[in-house]
C-alpha cells in the first residue's frame, strides 16, 4: 500500500517555544480510515491543521503524496462546526473550493449535484445555510469537502456537536461515502466508540508533549461493530489506554 500522508518527527508550536506536540510520526495509507482520539489539549485538531497547511510545522515535516491534478485539491477538511458561509447558498458553499481550481462551470454544477446526492440532500442547492438543521449543515460541510475531489479527507470532530441519532446516521453515511469514493480519511474525535466504529486504525494521542502513545488495529468487520460484544471489548481497551494516558499526563 502507498502512504498518502506521512509526518516525520513533527512538532508544532504556537509561541515558538513550547511545542503542542513533539516527534509525531503518523502515516495514513491510501484508502485507509484512521481515527485519532486523545487527551484533550494533545493537539488533535492542530495535527489536522498542520497537515492541511493551515499552520506551519515548528520542527519536522509533513509529506502528502498524491498524484497532482489541477481539477482537484489533494486535501479537504471538514470542520467541527460546519462553518458554512452564511451569505452563500448551499450550492455556492459547495463550490467554495472549486473557485481556485481549473474547473469549468458545467463541471462545478456536476460536482454540486454529485456531492448533494452523496450526502442525501438532493435539491437543497438553492437554500440558505440558516434554513438547514445542524445535521444538514454538517452534511453540506462534507459535500463541500468532497466537491474538490480530494484524495484525503481530514475531519475534525465533524459529528461532535450533533445529537446521538443524527450522529449515528451520519457515521454510517460517511462509511458509505468512504467505500464509494475510496478516500483516505484522518478523523479526529473525542468519542471513543465513534473512533472504534469508524476506523481501520485508532491512534491514541497523549500529551506533555503530545505524541502517539498507542495504536489499535480494528479487525472486526464494520457490520459486526455496532453494539457487538467484541466491539465493546475493543472500546473498553481504548478507554483504558486513554485513561492511562490521562493519568500519565497528570503526574
Amino acid at each position, binding site marked *: 500500500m502507498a502512504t498518502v500522508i506521512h509526518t516525520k518527527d513533527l512538532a508544532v508550536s504556537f509561541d515558538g517555544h513550547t511545542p503542542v506536540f513533539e516527534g509525531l510520526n503518523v502515516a495514513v495509507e491510501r484508502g485507509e480510515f484512521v481515527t485519532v482520539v486523545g487527551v484533550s489539549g494533545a493537539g488533535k485538531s492542530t495535527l489536522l491543521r498542520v497537515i492541511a497547511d493551515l499552520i506551519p510545522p515548528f520542527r519536522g515535516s509533513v509529506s502528502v503524496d498524491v498524484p497532482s491534478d489541477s481539477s482537484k485539491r489533494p486535501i479537504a477538511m471538514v470542520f467541527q*462546526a460546519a*462553518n458554512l*458561509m452564511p*451569505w452563500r447558498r448551499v450550492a455556492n458553499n459547495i463550490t*467554495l473550493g472549486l*473557485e*481556485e481550481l481549473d474547473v469549468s462551470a458545467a463541471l462545478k454544477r456536476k460536482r454540486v449535484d454529485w456531492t448533494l446526492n452523496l450526502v442525501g440532500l438532493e435539491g437543497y442547492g438553492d437554500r440558505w445555510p*440558516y434554513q438547514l438543521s445542524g445535521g444538514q449543515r454538517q452534511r453540506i460541510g462534507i459535500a*463541500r469537502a468532497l466537491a474538490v475531489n480530494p484524495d484525503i479527507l481530514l475531519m475534525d470532530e465533524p459529528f461532535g456537536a450533533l445529537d446521538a441519532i443524527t450522529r449515528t446516521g451520519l457515521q454510517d453515511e460517511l462509511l458509505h461515502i468512504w467505500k464509494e469514493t475510496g478516500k483516505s480519511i484522518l478523523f479526529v474525535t473525542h468519542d471513543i466508540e465513534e473512533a472504534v466504529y469508524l476506523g481501520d486504525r485508532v491512534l491514541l494521542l497523549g500529551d506533555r508533549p503530545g505524541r502517539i502513545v498507542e495504536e489499535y488495529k480494528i479487525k472486526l468487520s464494520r457490520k459486526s461493530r455496532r453494539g457487538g460484544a467484541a466491539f465493546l471489548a475493543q472500546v473498553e481497551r481504548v478507554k483504558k489506554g486513554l485513561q492511562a494516558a490521562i493519568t500519565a499526563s497528570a503526574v
Partner: protein
Amino acid sequence: MSPAKRYFLSATGLTAFLIFWETVARSGLIEPHLLPPPSTLPATLASEAGLGIWQAMVWASLRHYTIGLLVGSILGVSLGVCVALFPMVEASQAWLARVFRPIPPLAWIPFAIIWFGISETAAAFIISIGIFWINYFTSIAAVQAVDKDLIEVARAFGHRSFFALLRKVILPGAAPGILSGLRAGLGQGWMTVVAAELFGIPGIGQRMIEASGLLASEVVVLYMFSIALLYGVSDYIFVRVQDRILEWQR
C-alpha cells in the same frame, strides 16, 4: 401583533397627534405665528412650490446631502476597513481618532468657510463629517467581528491571498455591520443639512432661517416636514436595498 394592527396603531398615533396639534393651535390660546396649525401646510406648500422655491431649496439640499453622504460614507467605510485589517494603521490612528472624533460637525463651520467659502462644497463638507465618523467606527467593528473560523475555512479551500480573503470572507461577513452604519449615516446626514446651510448657502436650512425672521412659522414647519419626508423616503429605499443584499440573514 399582526402587521395590520401595527400599521393601524402607527397611523392612529400620528393622526391623533395632528388632531391634537390642530385643536390647540385653533383654540386661540396660542398665537398662530407661535404654533401654526397643520391644516395650513397644504396652502403653504402650494404657495412655496408655486413660486418654485420649494423645489429649488429641496434640490439644493439634496445636492449637499448626497455629496456629503457619498464622501463621508466612502471615506468612512474604506478607512474603517483598513484600520480593522492592518494593526499598524490601527495603532497609528488610535490617538488621532480620539482627538478628532469628539469635535461636532458644526464646530467645523468656521474652517468650512475659510477653506471653501460660502459654497455648496462647504455645506457638503460639514455634512460629510458626521457621516464619516459613524461609518468609520461601525466598519472597524464590523470587520473585527468577522468570524475567524470562516477565514480558516476559506484558506483550507484554497483562498490564500489577501484579496481573495477580503472578497470572499471579510467584506461579505462585515456587510451587515457596514450597512447598518451606512443607514445610521443616512439619518445623521439630514440632521446636519439644516445647520450646514444656516450660514447662507441656499437650501432648506437657509429658507427656514429666512422664514423665521419673517415670523412665517408655517413655512418653517413645511420645511421641517419636508426633511422628515426626504429622510423617510431615503431610509425606506435603503432598507429595501439592504434587505435584498442581506437576504441570507434570518
